[in-house]
Structure formats: C-alpha cells, structure tokens
C-alpha cells in the first residue's frame, strides 16, 4: 500500500475530527431527547471512537457478524450514546433509530446489548469487563488462526475494579499482542475527580509492571490516536494499553471537568448552547 502523502493525512485527520464532533452532537441530542444518559464520558471519548470506527478497525457494517472483523468492546458501557451514534453514522442501522433510544420497541438499550443491536460485539454496562472479555476473544482468535484485533475502551474510574487487573495479568501471561485497550483518562468519575475518589497513579508504571506495552497520548489529538493504534499492531507478544489523556465533557464549556455531567441530561436550552459551541469547532 502506498504511503499517504502529508496532504492526504491532513484531510483524513480533518475528516475524523469532524466526525468526532458530529458524534458529540449526536450523543447530546440523544441524551437530551431521552433525558437520560452519560454526556461527560461520551464527549471525552469522541475522537477515540471516531478514529476506531472510521479509520482503524477492519469492519463491515453490511455484515456485522463477519468472522474476521476486528472487535470492539465498549467496556465503559455508559458511553453508549457515543457508540450508538458511531454505529448509526457507520451504517449499521438507521440514524432515525437514535431518536428512539430507550423506547420499549427500540433495539438500543440503556447500555450496549450484543443480542439486540447490530455492530455491538459485546454487552457491557457493569464496569470492569473489557479486558478479560477482550483477552478471551484474543485467545479464541489465536485458537482459530484468525488475525482480527480486539479493541476495548475503558474508563479511568473503571480501572479501580479488581477484575481489570485480573484480566491485565492474564493478557500478559498469554502475550496477547492482538489486544489493544484504550483508557479514556478524563480524571472524572461519578462522585468527583478520580485523583480524589481513588487515586490511580502512577498508571504508566502500573500497566508497565503488568507487562503491557504502554503508550501515553492526548486523546483528543486524532493524529496521536492513529499513531498509537498503529503502533499497538506492531507488538506481537504483548498487549497494548493506550493511556489517552482527555477532558470529561470535552467541547462543551459548562460540562468540561464537571462530575455532575457524568450522568445528567442537558435541557433543550443547554443542548442548543452545547451544539453551538461544538459547531464552531467543525
């Protein structure tokens, strides 16, 4: 494959940035419409999800069950609005479904559901599952001689759960080079700042000590995300943890770094203000 020119790269990055902001607007509209959902952690992960679904992952919306597809597990399942927006924009289902999120007859559940929504590779919502589930899928890929990769997006507060570290040990024991975890490190959880509720640092050293390949990036810089995801593919005998520094509520001034926006819906007026702010960046 020929190398992308720097001009092509720039166009690509601009496109992904635009998609990320579109997903932000979609997510907030969904949350406002339903008056339920989790805006803060959807906004912080927008560039990561946009890059995975619209650049990095080898997937086919026309065939969501394709055996050789890359897998994505939204371990921080409360960012479901963001995932649903990405799946709809990618073409897994109609954009109009997003307005029916949470309706009794709608396939879109509060949290992602593998049995109901096309494109959802695993049910999530209770925190802590992504790494162990992903590791099992990676082992299955190895057992079946498949070359797909498994990506899982974790919250930072989520990594306070013990099972994360059980999975971390297992992934390094089995040298799962086909596993890439991304931690959306926005430093805000439901009750306040992560560094107050249960300090996690030093995270780089923790993951390194668990024998993961660790990359630290700015999780809002698409170019850095692309490079980190590419780099993770080169490590064949070690899982990769991408610690993505982000801002909770990114792009909406009144939501940024505020734990109250972890799981609160904006009013229609607040939605308009948020959309205007995000729109100015598009």
């Amino acid at each position, binding site marked *: 494959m020929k190398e992308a020119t720097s001009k092509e790269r720039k166009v690509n990055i601009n496109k992904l940035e635009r998609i990320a902001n579109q997903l932000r607007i979609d997510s907030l509209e969904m949350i406002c419409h339903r008056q339920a959902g989790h805006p803060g952690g959807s906004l912080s992960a927008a560039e990561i999800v946009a890059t995975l679904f619209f650049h990095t992952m080898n997937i086919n919306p026309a065939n969501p069950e394709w*055996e050789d597809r890359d*897998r994505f597990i939204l371990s921080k399942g409360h960012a479901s609005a963001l995932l649903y927006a990405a799946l709809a924009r990618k073409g897994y289902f109609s954009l109009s479904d997003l307005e029916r999120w949470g309706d009794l007859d709608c396939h879109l559940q509060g949290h992602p*559901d*593998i*049995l109901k929504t096309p494109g959802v*590779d*695993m*049910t999530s*919502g*209770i925190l*802590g*599952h992504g790494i*162990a*589930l*992903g*590791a*099992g*899928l*990676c*082992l*299955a*890929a190895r*057992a*079946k001689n*498949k070359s797909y990769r498994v990506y899982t997006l974790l919250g930072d507060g989520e990594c306070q759960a*013990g*099972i994360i570290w*059980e*999975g971390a*040990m*297992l992934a390094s024991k*089995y040298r799962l080079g086909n596993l890439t975890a991304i931690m959306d490190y926005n430093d805000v959880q439901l009750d306040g700042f992560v560094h107050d509720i249960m300090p996690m640092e030093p995270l780089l050293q923790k993951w390194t000590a668990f024998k993961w390949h660790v990359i630290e990036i700015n999780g809002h810089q698409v170019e850095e995300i692309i490079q980190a995801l590419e780099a993770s593919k080169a490590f064949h005998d070690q899982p990769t943890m991408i610690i993505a520094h982000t801002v909770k509520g990114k792009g909406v001034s009144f939501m940024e770094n505020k734990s109250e926006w972890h799981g609160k819906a904006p009013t229609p007026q607040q939605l308009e203000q948020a959309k205007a702010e995000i729109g100015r960046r598009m």
Partner: protein
Amino acid sequence: MANLSQREAFGRALMAYGQESKDVVVLDADTSSSTLSKFFAEAFPDRFYNVGIAEPCLVDVAVGFALGGLIPFINAFSALLSLRALEQIRTCVAYSNTNVKIAAGYAGLSDYKDGPTHHSLIDIGIMRMLPGMTVIVPADTLEIKAWVPVVAEHRGPVFLRLSRAGGEIVHHKEPEVRIGKGFELRKGSDISIITAGLMVSRSLKAADILMKEGISTSVIEMPSIKPIDQELILAAAEETGTLVTTEEHSVLGGLGSAVAEVVTAHNPVPVEKVGIQDVFARTGPDPDSLMDAYGLGVEDICQACYRAITKKKN
C-alpha cells in the same frame, strides 16, 4: 464398573469429549487438580487455560472464547462461581446468552473438610433465577458421562453442578439424558420422591424401606432442574397426591422450591422438602456423616414421606 467420585467421572468424561470435539476449550482457576480438569489439561495442553485465582476473570475469558466460536468449559468451586463470579455469569453469560459451560465442582456439602466457607448450598437457587440458564445436577458416573456431550452441544449457557464426592450407582447403563427431562426410576402409587444428585441413591434406599412397610413409593430423578420436567412432576402429583423432594441444597430456592412452584400453579398437593434447613452447616469428617447430620439421611427422607402422606388430601 465402580462408581467414581463425581469430579473424577466428569474429569474423565471431559477429557474423552475433548478428543471428539476440537472446539472444546477448558479453563480453570487454579483448582484443576481438585476439579480434575487436569485430565483434560494433560491430554490437550494447548486447549487448557489456567487463569489463576480469579473466578470473575475466568468467566469473562470464557465468554470471549464463546464469542470467538469455541465451546468453553469453566471449572472452579461452585461456591465461588455462584457467588464471586455471579455478576459475570449474570451479565456476560446469561443476559448475553453466550455459549459458556459452567462446571461447578465441590457443590453441596462435598467439600466437608473445608467447612461452610466452601460448602455450596444455595447455588442451584441462584443459578435457577437467571433467565436462560440451564441447571443440571447429575447423580452418578454414567450419567455424568452422558451429560457432557449433551451440555457441550446444547447452544447456550449451562450450569453443571458436580460433587467432590460420589454417591452409589444409580444407573447401570448410560442413561439417555435430555435437558428438561426427568427419569422415573421406580414406580409407586402412595407417594413420589423427587430427587437429584447424591440424594438419588439415598432416596432409593428410603423407598426400599417404605416399600417393606407397605408404602408404594415412586422415585423420580430430576437432573434437569431448569428447565424442569413439569409434565413428570404433575403426573406424579396426580398419581400419588403428595410429594417429597430431596436435595443436597438449601430448602430455599432449589429443587424443592422448583417442584413446589409447578404444583402450586397447576395441582396443589403437599410438598415436603428434605434439604438444608436454611442454616450454615459445619465442618465434618466425611461427606456422608455431614449429610446425615444436616437432615439428609435415609431416615430423614422416610420421616418426610410419613409427614407428606399424613397431609395428603383424600
């Protein structure tokens, strides 16, 4: 053929099935020399995964295998699977309907020497409440051998409850087991005992005593506790008008409760439950005397039958 302990019967059956199906993978949480999943591990080291002392991780890794198209059998102690790993089993196995086979060892009082921390007396009740979960409690060696392929080839989650111990032989040839089906082991007209697991052979002994006393006793083995054989239970209720259930489990939530649910909805008859009476047991010298000490003896079954007959409506 001598009756093996349930763990040995299962360990050998799983190894044998591993030869037949290349899609079976086996996982354990540092208990493979107890659950005897080590037989499979020794025969197929490339298809065996030891996750260490981490039952929640054990379940999730197995779910990953199932998503990737394999048939994972996870092995650990039932008390830990049904309690410590319950959230993983609820969310990622039952709710997500993944094809994970849970071989829950050391169930009931069979880990007599390790005491109440290791006893597993509410696992059937817990698992039975999960939508989509199949719960199987086999009685002896040949039955376990029969269940392994059936469990593996059933599409969906199964909780296979196994004892560390082994009761007496119930089946002299390999029974034809089916999910949702019980067996009428003995036909009688005065009372029916509905039983599972190690309590089957004890119930048969009780039936022998009752027969000598002139009480015609039916014995129904109900290995498929969920889905349960409603038809067989209702036929027994109709025929004998009173039921006794026997199980190595709490009287709350297990086989007795499941049977009572069926008859109260369709044909209310008295149900006397032999089981652990909502208490924690204690450490004991061997499984049999511990079972006897906690009301699971042959004499306890006979007494329950007398009570059930007294309550019978005419």
